[in-house]
């Protein structure tokens, strides 16, 4: 390839400075949505333009990047963003959570515990948790400013009234550092507890909405709930059919037209690491981890 026609990590240095200033402000005020001058990126909105800009601004030449999409390293979104940074920044990439220094994620938090050395960058479609209850941005900003968060509980109330329990399963609202109510991006609520007191820095970028917010390391993050309907992390009542993990978040995969299905870890790296260590599915035919997925697909009984 000839000399690149763009700067390291695509964005020019002034843009990165602007974004870093927004990030610093976001870290200083945990959970507060900082407006920033989001740029057009060479990918459509909804593909992680916010996350990519944050990643581009914090990435250095010696960083190792991991990109996941719904926990998976090998989906289109994850592969393209990884290739994008390989090409524009020439950084090392990895699929192993422990090797990465910067992890850009769409809709999942890795199962492997994060460390102080790592930064987790979330792609955020809609940063405003109050949006669907109060469409006026002027009003929601005022509500944030004055900590008027009663409305957030109205949403949870509605859930219980309609479904008998808090049916919000993803983008479950949290309160950060006992102050700002924040949308943790559409991660499953299973991941919410991982946000609390996390050693890694967590950054959230919303490109279309032009907002950046952050959770500094070791910050208290509480999922909102009612006294008599406490927050519960949900996962399918099953074990991964590839690695046997009973503590990871599971994807339900339809395997054929007859309604057969299997549950597998949504975090592909976690699943692979476990299989490399010799973990296998419960009650599976020995030494045939691939084939077992189909034949052994008598699905676990749903709850």
């Amino acid at each position, binding site marked *: 390839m000839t000399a690149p026609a763009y700067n390291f990590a695509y964005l020019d240095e002034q843009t990165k400075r602007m974004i870093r200033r927004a990030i610093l402000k976001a870290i200083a005020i945990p959970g507060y949505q900082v407006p920033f001058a989001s740029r057009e990126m060479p990918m459509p909105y909804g593909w992680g333009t916010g996350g990519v800009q944050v990643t581009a601004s914090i990435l250095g030449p010696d960083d190792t990047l991991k990109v996941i999409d719904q926990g998976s390293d090998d989906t289109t979104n994850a592969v393209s963003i990884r290739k994008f940074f390989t090409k524009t920044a020439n950084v090392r990439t990895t699929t192993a959570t422990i090797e990465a220094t910067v992890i850009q994620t769409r809709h999942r938090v890795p199962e492997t515990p994060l460390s102080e050395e790592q930064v987790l960058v979330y792609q955020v479609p809609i940063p405003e948790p109050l949006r669907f*209850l109060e469409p006026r941005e002027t009003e929601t900003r005022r509500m944030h400013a*004055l*900590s*008027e968060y*009663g*409305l957030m*509980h*109205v949403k949870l*109330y*509605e859930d*219980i*009234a*309609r479904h008998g329990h808090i049916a919000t399963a993803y983008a479950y609202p949290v309160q950060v550092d006992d102050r700002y109510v924040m949308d943790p991006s559409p991660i499953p609520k299973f991941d919410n507890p991982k946000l609390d007191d996390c050693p890694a820095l967590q950054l959230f970028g919303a490109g279309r909405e032009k907002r950046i917010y952050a959770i500094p390391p070791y910050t208290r993050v509480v999922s909102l*709930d*009612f*006294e*008599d*309907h406490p927050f519960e992390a949900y996962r399918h009542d099953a074990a991964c059919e590839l690695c046997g993990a009973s503590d990871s978040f599971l994807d339900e995969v339809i395997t054929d037209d007859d309604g057969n299905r299997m549950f597998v870890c949504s975090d592909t790296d976690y699943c692979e690491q476990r299989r490399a260590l010799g973990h296998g599915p419960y009650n599976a035919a020995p030494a045939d981890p691939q084939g077992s997925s189909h034949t052994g697909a008598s699905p676990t009984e749903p709850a």
Partner: protein
Amino acid sequence: MTTPDTDTPLLIAKGLTKYYGRQLGCRDASFELYEGEVMAVVGESGSGKSTLLQLLSTQIEPSSGSVTYRMRDGSLADLWRMSEPARRFLLRTDWGYVHQDPQLGLRMGVSAGGNVGERLMAVGARNYQDIRATATDWLGRVEIPHDRIDDTPRSYSGGMRQRLQIARNLVTAPRLIFMDEPTGGLDVSVQARLLDLLRRIVAEMRIAAIVVTHDLAVARLLSNRIMVMKGGEVIEAGLTDQVLDDPHQPYTQLLVSSILPA
């Protein structure tokens, strides 16, 4: 419930004036409102009734004049010297505001229970069963069947919406409630039922109320006192029966005589 203090007024308006640019909205309105008292503000369209109501309920800032309110702890507070959070807190706990159009006062996409419960959750109620029990109780008090608690106000009739709006406002047991044409847009029989309900609740809970209306019948039925406005000024004020039976100002006389005989 605090013991009612009947000696000091609940709300004192002094020289309230509002100009919209050079256009007069309301000039030099002064009055005192006591606990449990219902005051009607009547006048034709454009006479400054709504401006006055918005000034009192701190939705717009007066050009001059002041509104003083006696807080629950007995201290007097100048509403425009209070901090915004404190003012907004007052607005959703100790006050109520019933809009003419229930769509403005309700969350149309949220169930009736959620609508009534919102104020409770805003002041920190975090027990679902308790919130729901209170909401159910209030729906009963405004004569909405209990099995409609999980329906959104979209599926409600105009009269039910208005009653739901009232329940939503009264759930925190406010001491003062503002009503802007509460019966506007309702048919006569529904109006009568709503007025009945309002009169009963206001009397039971000893709530002070300021009711803006152009309907003198509403004023006569609900209010103890009345203020007549014209061209942005209060031209006549007094006990409702006195003013309506023996109007002094030519405009009031006109207003009273223009009621169609029932």
